[in-house]
């Protein structure tokens, strides 16, 4: 019996060790990454309650004061508390990042799965559309959309999903091509399940994995894009704080008040590190357990 069990462990398909929702099954780096992300999301979510000052609370008697207990990240040129502004910026940015990352993921995964399952002309057409979409210069497209709808988050909310779904579609399509040849897919048909059930309930949970891992990378890219656009003044419009615009504001005082740009910048870095650790940890998850 034990010999068979060993074989079973080896044949366990990738991902079977990782149970979404089962935090204890994750590798150490995934746990750290998840912890960092949870902290940042919580901070953003609770910003209105935990921020010591208002995001636009101006105090001209206290400009460019260095980090202290009263102002954890110091104050900027208008005497605004950078920590509070960063919290509010985080709140806005993370909301946008999630909005431009996950709805396209759902659409892309589904479209890719359907195309991969049925193949044929539909699949060929979709593959070409995906190629075109991915080949499109992303930044230029988003800026073009902003040029049409005007500066602000609306441009990002429209422009990013327009392109982002394509990579997920390609990922999930290629996984589906492998998956649809699996005997268990045949078995679902033999059990008389509908095609929709076969795809949605049996195939998608198996092919979500690569897309979910990629989505952590995508979130970081989207946050950087968002900050970049805000830095250029194409993101959320003042006085709303965005990580990129805080950094841009502080840039002129970089030599005298380094904290205004640097500390929010570190928050962006922290988010990136957290998301990548999580993604990396998830994709290595199969190495956890008895065979480690």
């Amino acid at each position, binding site marked *: *019996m034990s010999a*068979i*069990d060993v074989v*079973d*462990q080896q*044949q*366990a*398909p990738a*991902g*079977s060790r990782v149970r979404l929702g089962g935090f204890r099954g994750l590798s150490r780096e995934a746990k750290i990454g998840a912890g960092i992300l949870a902290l940042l999301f919580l901070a953003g979510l609770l910003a209105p309650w935990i921020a010591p000052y208002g995001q636009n609370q101006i105090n001209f008697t206290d400009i460019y004061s260095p980090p202290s207990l009263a102002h954890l990240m110091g104050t900027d040129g208008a005497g605004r508390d950078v920590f509070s502004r960063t919290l509010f910026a985080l709140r806005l940015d993370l909301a946008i990042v999630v909005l431009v990352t996950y709805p396209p993921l759902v659409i892309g995964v589904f479209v890719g799965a359907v195309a991969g399952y049925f193949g044929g002309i539909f699949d060929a057409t979709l593959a070409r559309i995906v190629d075109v979409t991915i080949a499109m210069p992303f930044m230029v497209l988003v800026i073009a959309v902003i040029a049409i709808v005007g500066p602000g988050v609306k441009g990002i909310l429209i422009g990013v999903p327009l392109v982002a779904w394509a990579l997920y579609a390609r990922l999930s399509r290629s996984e589906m091509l492998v998956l649809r040849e*699996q*005997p*268990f897919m*045949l*078995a*679902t*048909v*033999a*059990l*008389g*399940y*509908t095609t929709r*059930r076969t795809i949605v*309930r*049996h195939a998608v*949970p*198996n092919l979500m994995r690569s897309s979910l891992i990629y989505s952590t990378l995508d979130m970081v890219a989207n946050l950087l894009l968002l900050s970049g656009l805000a830095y250029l003044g194409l993101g959320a419009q003042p006085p709303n704080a965005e990580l990129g615009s805080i950094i841009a504001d502080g840039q002129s005082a970089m030599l005298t008040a380094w904290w205004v740009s640097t500390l929010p910048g570190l928050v962006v870095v922290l988010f990136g590190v957290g998301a990548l650790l999580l993604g990396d940890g998830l994709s290595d998850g199969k190495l956890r357990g008895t065979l480690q």
Partner: protein
Amino acid sequence: MSVAPEPVLSIEGLRVEFDMPFGRLVALRGASLSIRPGEIVGLVGETGSGKTLVCRSVMRLIPQRGRIADGRILFDGRDVLAMRPRELRDFRAHDVGMVFQDPFSTLNPVLRIGKQVEETLRVNFGLKKSEAQTRAVELLRDVGIPNPERRALSYPHEFSGGMRQRVMIALATASQPRLLLADEPTTALDVTTQAQILDLLVRLSEEGGMAVVLVSHDFGVIAQVCDRVAVMYGGHIVETGTIEEIHDGAEHPYTRGLLDSIPRLESAGRPTRLPVIPGVPPDPADEVSGCVFRPRCRYAQPACETVSMVLEPVSPGHETACPVRPFAVADSALTARAGARL
């Protein structure tokens, strides 16, 4: 045997072709088979003879590029090949079950065992969640999963091959189908597990009056459990009969060759060469006229080039596609002796 009841499944002249880029392959050339309710029929033959394809044709699960070019499949009088999608789905869900060869990949790796059994109960029978849960545990217990309440929460990779095959059987028989197609269910398992799985199939067949088609290339497996055997060669069913008829009085030279090539325990210690059938199985790309076995047959006659491979009765229930009957004399003597003894 009393009056033969109506067959639950009858396959007539089934021809399956694959249109490949390099030409047409004929995988089934005209297979005919009928299965009565509650009967366990073994389908034997070498690799590539079309055993699996017969099962997949019944389920209308022909691999890509393949199509059923000719023939009829009647289930309970209903024409399976003419079923519309909805009817076909209902047929797959309720009337037939299928167990596949490789238990390691026929269960969805990301869903718990219990969930997978529950799903078929909920989808195909409209059971409520709680009912389905109870019934799923019952089904798992019924196929011999120890401690089913706890094991229902396991994932497939936590099960051994034999256990997974039991789960697959539970899934396939959850609907209490009238016919179970078992496509080499024990090939991937070790011998002791194999015997348990076969016992399970026999028990389920007896309890539910379920007919079983047991595909195997192992005569030992077939002899252990089957009432009747159908021997396949080159996309044809060349002989059918009861285990005894086939084992003791095979009429088709291929069946004899197949039986002769089984290593026997009696020869242990006295090395003997196993007789083999010379030649190779027919290439599915070739269109063979007459008997497909002719090129390899020791008893081939010129007339064999024109015979149609139709099963002709030897005795009630025993049919062969060989019109030459090279063994008829010896066997009639055997029957005569047996008759005299009675």
